[in-house]
């Protein structure tokens, strides 16, 4: 008898679970959000643009892919991100699905004012990846950036995320910053976050048209440009080119880059590509004040020599080493100065001080950014040119004779 009871209760429990499928979502009912663009709204706080992927047009299966446009952009507005998302359902036939979102674009306007109001939505939602890349739309609206088409990658999103990674690897002027990194920068009292800037170059209004992709030279294209500096969660300014590289160098994110030096009075005569570089930041204390010590070890090879030079001579190489070191040092010092001018500790020097001397840190914490502006920073660079490609002396050496 008891066994009957057991069985019947088991069945009773199982029945409801068989009838409803709560979290089930068919792939065909989902709208994959690839990127979110957030602008300042007119009536409401945010204008949000959703870049959705059109699977049939992206994948090149036998179902005849690649006919239409790979993405579609929808807009909605709201005072919170959730509100905007829910309102978007009035326009979109499918459920917005964020698990594959790779990019969050924030307009300069929002970054200067209400940036903090949208971060928690990204942080809290379990569906949303916190490894999503964040960028700032520079000189254009986030919407424009999100709706731009690109011609090498079918998905514009992968163009941007891949591009950031490849510049980080090859040039070192941008670095991948995801939502998590940004938030940890926001919270920490000894560090300020940075974000990559993105531009739409050329005719901005052409960027979202399919014809833009028909020519080999697009009328409009996206370009990574500059690093945004934040202070207290608000956009404070930008650092560009070599300064940006300096900043990323200090953060130990540069993997490879190129350094030009002068030789025989010719400017930018020698180009060195570094292949391995490592940054160590340490803190010393002098008279109760922290002194930052940056030490960079760099290895590379000569990728170009546009002048007569004897690269077989170790003495010459040594001399070149010194020149490269000087150049790197200059860039780094410039980057530090730029950040100090903005009074924003994007390098996380504060965290170093915190770890080195927690007691002192408690005193410095309150107005660290002021302290940072007047911080003494020493830079030491060790650079080694290991090899010089498959030629010894450049053709210049024999030509000039």
């Amino acid at each position, binding site marked *: 008898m008891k*066994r*009957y009871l057991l*069985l019947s209760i088991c069945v009773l429990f199982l029945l409801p*679970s*068989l009838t409803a*499928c709560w*979290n*089930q*979502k*068919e*792939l*065909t009912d*989902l709208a*994959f959000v*690839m990127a979110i663009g957030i602008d300042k709204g007119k009536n409401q706080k945010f204008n949000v643009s959703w870049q959705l*992927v059109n*699977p*049939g047009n*992206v*994948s090149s*299966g*036998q*179902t005849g*892919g690649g006919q239409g446009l790979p993405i579609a952009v929808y807009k909605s507005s709201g005072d919170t991100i959730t509100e905007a998302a829910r309102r978007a359902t009035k326009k979109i036939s499918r459920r917005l*699905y964020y*698990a*594959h979102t*790779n990019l969050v674009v924030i307009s300069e306007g929002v970054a200067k004012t209400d940036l903090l109001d949208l971060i928690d939505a990204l942080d809290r939602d379990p*569906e949303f*990846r916190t490894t999503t890349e964040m960028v700032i739309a520079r000189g254009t609206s986030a919407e424009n950036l999100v709706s731009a088409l690109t011609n090498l990658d079918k998905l514009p999103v992968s163009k941007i995320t891949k591009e950031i990674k490849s510049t980080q690897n090859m040039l070192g002027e941008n670095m991948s910053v995801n939502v998590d990194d940004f938030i940890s920068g926001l919270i920490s009292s000894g560090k300020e976050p940075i974000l990559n800037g993105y531009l739409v170059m050329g005719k901005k209004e052409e960027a979202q048209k399919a014809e833009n992709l028909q020519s080999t030279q697009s009328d409009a294209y996206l370009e990574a440009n500059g690093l945004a500096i934040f202070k207290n969660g608000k956009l404070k300014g930008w650092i560009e080119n070599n300064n940006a590289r300096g900043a990323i160098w200090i953060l130990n994110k540069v993997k490879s880059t190129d350094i030009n030096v002068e030789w025989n009075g010719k400017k930018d005569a020698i180009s060195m590509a570094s292949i391995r570089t490592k940054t160590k930041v340490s803190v010393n204390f002098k008279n109760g004040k922290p002194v930052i010590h940056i030490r960079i070890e760099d290895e590379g090879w000569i990728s170009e020599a546009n002048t007569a030079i004897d690269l077989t001579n170790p003495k010459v190489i040594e001399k070149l080493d010194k020149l490269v070191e000087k150049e790197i040092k200059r860039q780094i010092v410039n980057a530090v100065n730029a950040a100090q001018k903005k009074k924003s500790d994007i390098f996380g020097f504060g965290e170093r001080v915190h770890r080195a001397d927690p007691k002192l840190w408690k005193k410095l914490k309150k107005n660290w950014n002021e302290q940072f502006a007047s911080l003494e920073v020493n830079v030491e660079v060790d650079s080694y040119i290991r090899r010089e490609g498959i030629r010894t002396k450049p053709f210049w050496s024999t030509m000039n004779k």
Partner: protein
Amino acid sequence: MSILSNILKKKQKKRQNDNFRQMQDPGKPDELPIHRDYKDNIARIKEEYGNSTDISYREFKFCGSRGMAVYIDGLASNNMISDFFIETVSEEVRDMVTDCFQQMFDFTAGLGNVETIINWEEIHDAILVGNTIFFLDGYSKAISAETKGWEKRAISEPSTQLSIQGPKDSFTETLRTNTALIRRRIKSPNLWIESMKLGSVTQTDIAIMYIKGIANEKIIGEVKERLNRINLDAVQGSGYLEQLFEDQTWTPFPTTHHSERPDVISSHLLEGRIALVVDGTPFVVTVPALFIQFFQAPDDYYARFDISTSIRLLRILAFFIALIGPAAYIAGTTFHQEMIPTTMAIAIAAQRENVPFPAFFEALIMEVTFEILREAGLRLPRAVGQAVSIVGALVIGQAAVQAGFVSPVMVIVVSITAIANFSTPVFTMAIAARLIRFIMMGLATILGFYGIMLGIMFMTIHLCSLRSFGVPYMMPIAPFNIRNQQDVFIRFPIWAMKNRPMFISKGNMARAGENQKPGPPKQDEDQSSQGES
């Protein structure tokens, strides 16, 4: 589950008991004497067998009195009996013989295994196995001589358990041939064979084989006890036997092992297992059977250990693919889209764009179709069978994809699953995976990977609770036993498999002597230097 079995048991018991008595007891007294007049005996046989046409009678005259030989045509060898009559009975000695019966007995000894029968019951037993009965007028006893000689299939290559490097013989339907095949591999007086008959009507011969001193006496006793408990009209082959004496009915997993390969059976015997040969089936059953045993293919032992280890691991992986392949597809595409890499998710979404069914039904339709094809392929004549199953799957898969009913990914998933399923060496285990796969698909539809996880958990608990003849089913894994890991996931080199599995075998545990590791000859260096000079 056991509730159902209880109900069934109770109802069956009653019915069975009634039926059984009727069947077994045709209402005749057991002990009947044999008539002095042989004609009465013949009449009696004719009556009892209902004048069956396959019973042959030969009348003869021997030492003055008449007699009759009775045998079943087809079971007994006609040639043997004819030769006997030509050579001996007709060239009768004219000496005065005092005991005619004794004389006859001596003559028939040439046929082999002669017995005197005084009981009517024994006549049936003898005649039905192919012996010839000689009645002599004036004697209330008969002679039974072994003249078995029916048509039997020759030993052929195994058809279901193939191996690349192993021997190519397989069992046949004849019990004696099968025991001989095993005996030929284990030439030891310790290989003991005990016989019994099962099935009140069929009277099927069964041989229990084990190696004395290696097999566990307790398990032998258990096997015999369970066999004695079987009380059924027919035991038609090893499949019946397996179902009748396994530990658990309510399980998809096999708790007895069978094989048609003598090499597999003899290696099982050497591990201390007990083999049961059933007359009329080319499969020999061994017990106790453990989970991991179903992943040990004969080739594992003929190939080198590193190769066979990796192949065995592959096989276990394939088993898991066969279990959860479609279920993982369902869970991945309907619950955990975040898990799939973006480009792949988009590709799958594009393919599923025009498919009318939800993922579960899509998978179910394809799986069921495939199962039907496989079943049909099995039943079709051998020449067409394989072609039909392959072509059918291809055609249906291709057509269904082009018609937009199923997505190409689904076809890929189903085929991978099916192929993975074929790689399990023993059919009974493979079919268990086939069955559980559908349950897993259901669970995946309800709760995605959580459902699958719970399903696997449930399965593991079930597997751990099983026993085969008292031995835990998951034995060397759980309970874990470090000393018996030589032949589980990693097959150790043969010289390192020093012990028999201690949970099966009792007593003589050592398999190999010391220092079995092979190596180059010891004076290697001297020789090579000499060779060079």
